[in-house]
C-alpha cells in the first residue's frame, strides 16, 4: 500500500515510503520531525502550514505527499544558513513581527517566496502575499514592516 516518495527538504534528499492519502504536512512533521510547520484548520484556509515548494509558497495541508515527489521544499527550519539567521528572521525579531509564534513559520515562508520572486513588491503586493496566512495576535502590520525592511535592503545576508 505504501509508495515511494523522494523529495529534497531544506537541501537534504529523503527517500520515504508513505500511504497515498498522506498529506505533505504530515510527512514533514511526523516523518521528518520538522515541526516548525504547523496545522490549525481542516479547510486549507489558515496558512500556518505554508512551505516553499519549487519556489512557490504552498499550503502543505492541501497537497498529498506523493504529489510532491521530486520536489524541492523549504520549511522554516531551512531558512537559516549555517547557523546564521535569514534576513527575514532577523527582521521579524527586530520588528516584533510575531507574538504567539504559531503562524510565524507560514509567514516567513510566504514572505521568502515573495521576495525571491519579486525583489521590489509594493505594499499591496506584500499584503497580498500573506493574505492566505491568518495571524490572530499581531494585526499584520509589524509583519508588513519587517518584510518591507528586508525589501529595502536593511538586512543583508550574513556570510
Amino acid at each position, binding site marked *: 500500500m505504501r509508495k515511494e516518495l523522494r523529495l529534497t527538504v531544506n537541501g537534504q534528499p529523503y527517500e520515504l515510503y508513505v500511504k497515498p492519502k498522506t498529506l505533505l504536512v504530515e510527512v514533514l512533521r511526523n516523518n521528518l520531525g520538522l515541526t516548525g510547520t*504547523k496545522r*490549525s484548520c481542516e479547510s486549507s*484556509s489558515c496558512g500556518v502550514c505554508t512551505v516553499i515548494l519549487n519556489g512557490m509558497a504552498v499550503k502543505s495541508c492541501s497537497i498529498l505527499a506523493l504529489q510532491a515527489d521530486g520536489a524541492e521544499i523549504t520549511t522554516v527550519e531551512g531558512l537559516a544558513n549555517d547557523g546564521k539567521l535569514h534576513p527575514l528572521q532577523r527582521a521579524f525579531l527586530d520588528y516584533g513581527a510575531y507574538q504567539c509564534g504559531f503562524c510565524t513559520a507560514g509567514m516567513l515562508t510566504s514572505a521568502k517566496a515573495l521576495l525571491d520572486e519579486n525583489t521590489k513588491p509594493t505594499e499591496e503586493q506584500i499584503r497580498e502575499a500573506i*493574505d492566505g496566512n491568518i495571524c490572530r495576535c499581531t494585526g499584520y502590520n509589524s509583519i508588513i514592516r519587517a518584510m518591507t525592511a528586508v525589501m529595502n535592503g536593511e538586512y543583508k545576508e550574513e556570510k
Partner: protein
Amino acid sequence: MSDQYAVIGKSHIKVDGHAKVTGSAKYTFDMVLPNMLYGKILRSPHPHAKILKIDTSLAEKMIGVKAIVTGKDTLGHKNGPWRRFPELCDEEILCREKVRYIGDPVAAVAAVDEDTAEAAIDLIDVEYELLQAVFDPLEAMKEGAPKLHEHAERNINVTRRIEWGDVNEAFEKCDYILEDQFHTSSQAHLCMETHGAIADFGYDGKLTVWTSTQSNYYIQVLLAGMLGMREGDVRVIKPPSGGGFGSKFELDSAQFCSALLSQKLRRPVKIILTREEEFTATKRKTPMYYYVKVGAQKNGTLLAKEVRVVTEGGAYTAMGSTALYLTGFYSCMPYKWAHYRYDGYRVYTNTAPTSALRGFGAPQAYFAGESMIDMLAAEMKMDSIEIRRKNAVTPHYEVPGQAYIQSCGLNECYDAIEKYMKGRWKLPPNRGIGIGNYAFMSGGIFNWFNTPYAFSAAMVKINIDGKVDLFTGACDTGQGSDTTLAMICAEELGVHLEDIRVHAEDTDLGPADLGSWGSRETLMNGNAVKMAAADAKRQLLEFAYAKMKPNVVYDLDIKDHKIYMVDRPERYVSYFDIVSDVIRAKEGQTIIGRGHYTPHRKGMVSPAWSFGVQAVEVEVDPETGKVKLIEIVTAHDCGQVINPIGVLGQVEGATMLAAGGAFCEDQPMDNGKILNPSIGDYKVLRSVDMPKTVGIEVDTYEPEGPFGAKEAGEGLTSSTAGAMANAVYNAVSVRIRDLPITPGKVLKALKEKKEKGKKEK
C-alpha cells in the same frame, strides 16, 4: 522618562523570539512522548437531552483502541472557576446524565493513532431522550422555558448589581434623556493553536499535563478537584502557547479527558481539538442584550445612567459571571456619573458556554456606552470629544464605593487625538470619523477563585556567573509576559536582559499565579518580580556597602553590571565580583530573592486603570453597505511603557481583534448549532483588510504599578466597536445597534432611512 532606565522603555527582542522565528519552539501541538496514545472526544449532537444509554462495546473491540471513558468513569464532580460559589461550579465536562449544548462531551477514546480514535468515536452508540431546548436568554427567562440546571429558576444563573446615588430622582433633573437598546454578538477566539493537552498519569499516582493554557495554576487546581487528587500531585506544564485571548484559563475537555484516559491506562494520552471543535465546543465571547437610559443636563454634565443587561450564558457558568460583573462596571466608565444603576443577569441557554474574550465585558459595555454618548452629544449639540472631556474621570477620582483611580491620562489622550486629527474632520461623502474611549482594569482584586496564595509571586535566583533565573507563574501565550517580566527584573537588578532566563511554565517549579487574563500580569506579576529582584539586590548591596564603605548618607544601586554610588557613579564595583563574594559569604548558597503581590484595600475592581481614546475612520459604500476601515488611531495611557515594541504589537493586535468583532466576526446559530465552524466560513480580518493603525502613548506614572506601568492590550479592544458605530453614523447617518456591523445591516438601515425620509438617530 525613559532615559532614567537602562532596560525598560527601550525595545528589546523578545526572549522567546529566536525559538519562534526558527520553528524550534515546541508547542503542545508538536509534542510526542514515548508510549503515547491519541484521544478523541465524542460530543452531543443535541442541544438538550438526557443520556439514556451509552454503548461502547463495538468501539472497544476495534484494533488499536486502548480505553474509552464516559461520565460514569468520573467522580461526578462539577467544576467552575468561581469556587467561592459552589452552585456556579456546574460543569461536569464529561456529562453523566444530561447534555446541555451541541458539543457537550459524552465519551472519550484513547487509541494508537488519531485515525483509529476518530473511527472508534463513530462506533459509540448513545441513546438520548431529547428535551426541549431554549437558545435566546430572553426566551430562557420566561415562565415555562426548559430548565437547564436544577438550581437555576427561570434559568437565571447569576445576577450582579452596582448602584450609587439615586437615578430615579436624578432623571427628574435631566434636560436630555435618551433610552436605547443594543445587542452584541458572539465571537470566537480563533487561537492559531487549538486547545490541547498531553496527560501522563504515572504509576506513582502523580499526574503531569502539558497543555496550551493561560493559567497552569487554575488547570492544576481544577483538574485535581475533578480527579479527587491532591493539588500538589498534579503538575501542569505550559509549553510555548499559540494564543489564548481568554479561551484557555478554564479546565477544558482536552485536559480533562486526556487525564482520565491516562489515569486508566497509565500511559501518556494526547488530545488536540480540531478547528471545528474549537469553534463549537470551547468557550466564546459573551453575547449581551443592553438596555441603556442616560440623562444629561443643559450645562453638558452627564448626570444619570441606568443599565440593564442580559447575557447569553450558554450551558455553563464558566467565567461568564465575571464578564457579567465587569460589563456592569465598565458601563459607568470613563465618566463621572453622579448617579448610576446596573442590573445584570446571566441566563443559561442551550448553546456553547460563553465566557471571556479579550476585553471581558468591556467591548460590549463600551459599544453601547460610547454609542449613547455620541447620541447625547448630537442632541445637546456638543462636539463628541468635548462632551467626553467635560465628564471624563480624572486622577484621584473615586468611582463611588467602587474604585479609586490614581493615574489617569485621559485628558492627555484627548489632546493627542485632537492634535492627530486636526484638519482631518472635513471628509468626502460616505466617510466618517468616530470617537470612542475606554478605561480598563490592570487585574482584578476579587478572589472568586478562592485561592489561598498571593495573586502573583516570583523568585529570582542568581548563579555564580551572575546569570539570573526568574521563576514566576505568569503564562506567556504570545502577549510577551516572559519578556516584560524579564525586563522588569533586569531593570531592578541592574543586569542585562540577556542575563535572565525565564521559567514560567511549570507549577512544580514556579510559584502560583492566577494566570494571564484580566490584564493582570504587567502590574501584578511585575510587582512580584520587582520585589523578588529587589530582595536579591538587597543581598548584593549589603555586601557592597561593606566592601565600598560609602558614607551612610550615600546610596548604592546597580546598573549595567555595575554596583555604583548613585551620587558618584564613577565609584563602582563589579556586579559579578559581588555575586561571587556573597555566595561565598553565604556558605556557598545561591542567592535567592522572593516577591509577591496581592492587591489590598484597592476598591472593588482593580488597583489601577489604563485609559485610551480611539478615532476610527471608515468609508461606507452606500450601494453595498460595505464598511472599509481606513485608519484607526489610539492614544492610550498605560503608565510607563516597559517594552515599546511589545506595546505596539498589543495596540495593533487588539485593534484587529476588536475591529473583527465589530464588523465581520459572528457565530450565527440555528437551534443551537453554530453554522460557520470553519476558518473558511468564519470571516476574520486578513493582512489586506488591516487599516493603518497608529498608537500614541501618553506619559503618566502609576504609583501602584512596577516602575509606573499598567496594562496595555485588553483595554485596547474595548472602544473600537463603539467608535466604529459612531464613524458609520458620521459617514452615512445610520446608527447600527446590533453587532457585527455587517453590510446587510447597513444597507437595511440606509433603506429604512430613505423610506422614512428623515435622519435616524
